[in-house]
Structures are given as structure tokens and as C-alpha cells.
């Protein structure tokens, strides 16, 4: 078990190094950012000064060393666009994105799993069929289109919910939260539904097909033959066996949610890192782009580690395998 964790940590570190290398390569090989910052009539000495302050003219090994050392300390240099420290820009906006992603993920799980269980238990009921058809449409609709539709219905026509922004936020130390104010809660509804809908359909379809498969197994038949109640058979024996794939996909999707937040944040003008990343792409603001990449890479690696750990909690067979392969 410990050997397994260590091995996974080493793998995670390697992936992070690879991501950091790609980030650094972006710094190195992507052309002159100064042209993006300055106007055409900027004096030449001002340009030189700017280049110096941004550290662009230093030799490559120096820049590489600086990149690694700074990255470990959380310093990612200055934005080409705003000349602010990138680390702080990201830290300021991270709470907004994480809150949005978390609410979206919870929405997807809390709605998706029961819907999937229902569709798996009663595959022929009209409700299941309706859910499956609607979910196929949901998979085909691009995220931004869902956002626009929701805005049109709930903000423009009905006027119930705001169409942009985070509402009022409260500072809790370094964390600014919108979850403690009424306007903040109202503001997060549409974006989190937009962001979570695709994941919801995915989880629902996955749970359904896993449920159908598990319900056909001998141990479910045997559990019924022992006279266990429906609830024990469906939610004790069947659901737990569907969890392993659900954990995998949900874990992977959590990363995807944070990335898809780029789109949702743009549609709803949500002040998170996704919106920041989009602006950096438009302005070719390489420091922000590469920092975002490192951050996303880190989130993915952490999620993957957590998913691996969860397997051990759920599936005793893996625990045994981990033990035997660990002892080798």
C-alpha cells in the first residue's frame, strides 16, 4: 500500500515536471511579447526598460533556472498584459473558479447518480426513456449554447436570475466566497448548471449502463434468492459495485470541469481563472497561459492521486493486489 502510494507520487512528480517543461518551452520559444504590450509610438528606451523588467533578454539557462525556482515558490513572473504578478492574479481568481467547479460537480453527482440508478433499475419506464433521449441532446449541445439558452430563459424572459457576475462576495482570509450571500448564491445557479449539465448526462449514462450490467450478475441474483430487500439489493449490493467506474470518470471529469469553466466563465462573465486564461490567449500573455497550464496539471495530478486512493477504499480486491505487488 505504501509502496503503491510512493510509486504514484513519483509518477505524479514526473507528470508535473513534464507539464512544467511544456510551460517553460512556451516561455522560451514563443516570440516577442513586448510588441503586444507597447503601442506603436512607444519610445525605444522605454521598450528596452520594459524588456529588462520582464527579464526577456536573459540567456536561456538563466531563464530556465529562474522559472523552476520561482514556480516552486509560487512566483510565475509578471503578466505581459497587465504587468501584475501572475501568481497573485491567479490566486485572486481561483476561489471563484473552484467554487463554481465544486458546485457544478456536486450538482452533476447529486442529480446524475440517482437518475442513472433509476434508469438502470427501470430501463423501460417512460421516465428513463425520456431521460436518455434528453441526455443525448444534452451531450450534443455545446456548453456555451446551453449557457446562452439558460440566460435567455431565466434572465431575459423570466428575469429570475442574474446573467453575469458573481454577486456579492465575502472575504474569508485570502478566500473570497460568493456562497454566503443571497446574490452570490443566485448568481452561481445558472453557471453551475451550465457547467455541470454535460457531466450530469455523462454520469447518468455511466451509472445506468453499469447498473444494468451489475443487475445481471450472479451475486445480485443470489442476493435476491436469499430474500434480501429490494433496497439492500439495489443500493447496497448493486450501487456499490457500480462505484469504481463512476469514481474514475467523476475524477477525470472534475479536471474537465475546471477546464470547461473557461467557457462557462466567458458566457457568464464569471471572474475566475478561466476567463483570465481566455484573455491571456487572446493577448498571447504567455506567463499567464503557462501558469494556468501548470495549475491545471497540478489539479489533474492531485485528482488522479485521490481517485487511486478511493479505489482502495471501495474495492478490496485491489487492496489485495496492491499488497502482493507491493511486497515484490
Amino acid at each position, binding site marked *: 500500500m505504501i509502496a503503491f502510494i510512493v510509486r504514484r507520487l513519483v509518477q505524479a512528480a514526473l507528470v508535473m515536471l513534464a507539464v512544467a517543461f511544456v510551460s517553460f518551452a512556451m516561455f522560451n520559444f514563443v516570440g516577442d511579447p513586448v510588441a503586444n504590450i507597447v503601442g506603436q509610438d512607444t519610445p525605444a528606451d522605454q521598450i528596452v526598460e520594459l524588456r529588462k523588467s520582464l527579464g526577456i533578454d536573459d540567456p536561456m539557462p538563466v531563464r530556465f533556472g529562474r522559472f523552476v525556482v520561482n514556480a516552486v515558490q509560487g512566483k510565475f513572473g509578471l503578466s505581459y498584459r497587465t504587468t501584475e504578478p501572475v501568481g497573485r492574479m491567479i490566486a485572486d481568481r481561483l476561489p471563484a473558479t473552484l467554487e463554481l467547479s465544486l458546485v457544478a460537480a456536486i450538482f452533476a453527482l447529486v442529480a446524475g447518480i440517482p437518475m442513472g440508478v433509476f434508469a438502470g433499475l427501470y430501463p423501460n419506464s417512460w421516465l428513463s426513456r425520456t431521460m436518455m433521449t434528453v441526455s443525448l441532446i444534452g451531450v450534443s449541445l455545446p456548453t456555451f449554447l446551453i449557457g446562452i439558452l439558460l440566460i435567455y430563459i431565466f434572465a431575459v424572459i423570466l428575469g429570475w436570475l442574474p446573467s453575469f457576475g458573481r454577486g456579492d462576495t465575502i472575504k474569508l482570509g485570502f478566500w473570497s466566497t460568493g456562497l454566503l450571500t443571497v446574490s452570490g448564491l443566485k448568481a452561481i445557479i445558472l453557471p453551475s448548471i451550465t457547467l455541470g449539465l454535460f457531466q450530469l448526462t455523462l454520469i447518468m449514462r455511466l451509472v445506468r449502463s453499469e447498473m444494468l450490467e451489475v443487475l445481471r*450478475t*450472479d*451475486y445480485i*441474483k*443470489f*442476493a*435476491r*434468492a*436469499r*430474500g*434480501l*430487500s*429490494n433496497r*439492500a439489493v439495489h443500493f*447496497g*449490493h448493486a450501487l*456499490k*459495485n457500480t462505484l469504481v467506474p463512476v469514481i474514475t470518470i467523476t475524477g477525470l471529469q472534475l479536471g474537465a470541469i475546471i477546464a470547461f469553466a473557461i467557457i462557462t466563465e466567458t458566457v457568464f462573465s464569471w471572474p475566475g481563472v478561466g476567463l483570465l486564461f481566455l484573455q491571456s490567449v487572446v493577448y498571447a500573455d504567455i506567463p499567464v497561459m503557462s501558469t494556468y497550464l501548470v495549475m491545471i496539471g497540478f489539479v489533474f495530478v492531485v485528482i488522479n492521486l485521490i481517485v487511486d486512493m478511493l479505489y482502495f477504499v*471501495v*474495492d*478490496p*480486491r485491489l487492496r*489485495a493486489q496492491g499488497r502482493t505487488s507491493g511486497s515484490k
Partner: protein
Amino acid sequence: MTSPKLLEVKNLRVEFPTRRGTLVAVDDVSLEIAAGEVLGVVGESGAGKSMTGAAIIGLLEPPGRIASGEIRLEGRRIDNLPYHEMRRIRGRQIGAIFQDPLTSLNPLYKVGDQLIETIQTHLPLTHAQARDRAVKLLEDVGIPSAAERITHYPHQFSGGMRQRVVIALALAAEPKLIIADEPTTALDVSIQAQIIQLLRRLCREHGTAVMLVTHDMGVIAETADRVAVMYAGRIAEIGPVQDVIKRPHHPYTVGLMGAIPAMGHKAERLTQIDGSMPRLNAIPKGCAFNPRCPKVFDRCRVERPDPMPAGNSNAACWLVAKEPAHV
């Protein structure tokens, strides 16, 4: 028969509606099991043996359904009970053992928890009492250091040990009847005899009746009190095991007996029945066995025989009809 009837199946018919018409998997089957008795049910794959067992315990896989006939447990009709009432009978009155012990146990739960869950579903015991009973059951089925093994997961048991756990689970609430569907087929040959003996011993101790479904005539000969031979969804012959084996009346039973290697008859060739059992969608008119029967005559091809007395047994064959119709 002196002992009271525990289970009575009358004219059971199981159908599978499919897109290309309805298949009759079990057709007009009647049988009885007395308390504590072991009834063997033999036949080839698809003869309807497992289907009969599934119908009795109320676990036919949809779209399969009981089309007609009735099933009575101690005189009470159970084939038309609502789901939640039938659930209380399963495990408590009728237990079941399936073919493959490797897949019969939920891999994610400790065997002890699966036992305790089953015990507490049916018996008013506290968790501690149920746990004691679970340990006792595991000891009964011959699992060494049961108190410790109770915390193990199914994958930590060998195939034979798992089938012992399955038997313990089936016996957990002291059912009066166990339906054992090919309980040894998936096991190593060397373990098969042990498991059959264990099952027989436990059922005798607890006074549990068994419906033993198998395609192994040898197992039946060793274990069963009575035997029902099934062919193409119907009962070909049913009677005390010694009578059926020594004096088979139905040509199909005769053929089956010819296919068993007998000890001490090395020189004798094993015989084999020509052809194969018809598919459910192509059961011939008259006696289902007629195309393969060495003694077929005209009546077999037009009229279907019902089981009729033949010695101590009943056989569904025109050869044993009291007034032979053939001229």
C-alpha cells in the same frame, strides 16, 4: 409416499415471449418434494431444469413468466404472491445455490457481512447474535478458523471454499427447501464429491429438502431419493432413484443410463443417444423425443404422452401405456 408434501408443482408452464413467437421453456411439469427429501432433476442443457427451479423460487428472468399451473409450498400457493411476500419466502423457506461460487458472492463485501445481512433479514437477532450464528454456519460447512475467516472478502477464498460459503448463506435462515442449481459444475472435479456430501449431510441434519438440478446422473445416483428426468421442457420420467436407474422405462432415460460409465464393467461400451435435443422453437409434434427414439412408433408422432404409472415410477411414454394403442 409417507411424509407430507413440502412442495407441489402442478402443470407448470413457463413461457418466454420473443419477437419470433413464444418459446415454451417448461411445459406441463408436475412434481412433488416431501420434507427432507432430495429430488434430483436431470436433463441436458436447455431441458428446462434450471427454469423450473427459478420458477419455484420466483426468480424467472424477464421476459420469462409462469403462463399456467401452480406451485404450492406446504399447501400455500406461492406462484402468484406479490413481490414483497415472495421475498420473505426466499431465503427463509426456500434457499438457493447457484452454479458458480466465484460469481455468486458480492466481491465488495466481507463474507461475514453477507451472512449477517441474510440472517438479520429473516431472523429477529441482534448483530452480535447474528454474527455468532454466522461463525457457527461457517464452521458447519467446514471452513477452518471460521471466526477469523468471517472478516475476509470472497476473493480470499478458493473456489471450493466459496461454494461452502454459498451453502452457508443458503442455509442461513434454516429454509425447508434448497434449490441447488448445478452446485458443483463449476468446481474442480476433486472437490465436487466433497461439496455434494457436505450438502447432503447438512440437509439431513437440518431436515432440509433439496431440489438438486444437475446434468450428472452419477451425482443423482449417489445423492437423490427420487429423480425427475427432463427432456425439452417436459418430464420424461420421475420416480425413486433406484427404480429409475435400474429399471428405466422411458427410452430417453435408458439412453441416459447407457451414457454413465459403470464401475466394474470395463468391457462395456458407453452408448450414446443419436441426434440432439430439439430447440425450443422446433419441438416436434407428439412426443418430443420421437425423432431420436429407437422405439418410436406411429402414436408417438401424433399424440403427446403424459406421465403415466410404470412400475414404481411415472414415465411419459406410450410404451408403458396400460392399453397399448399400437396395433
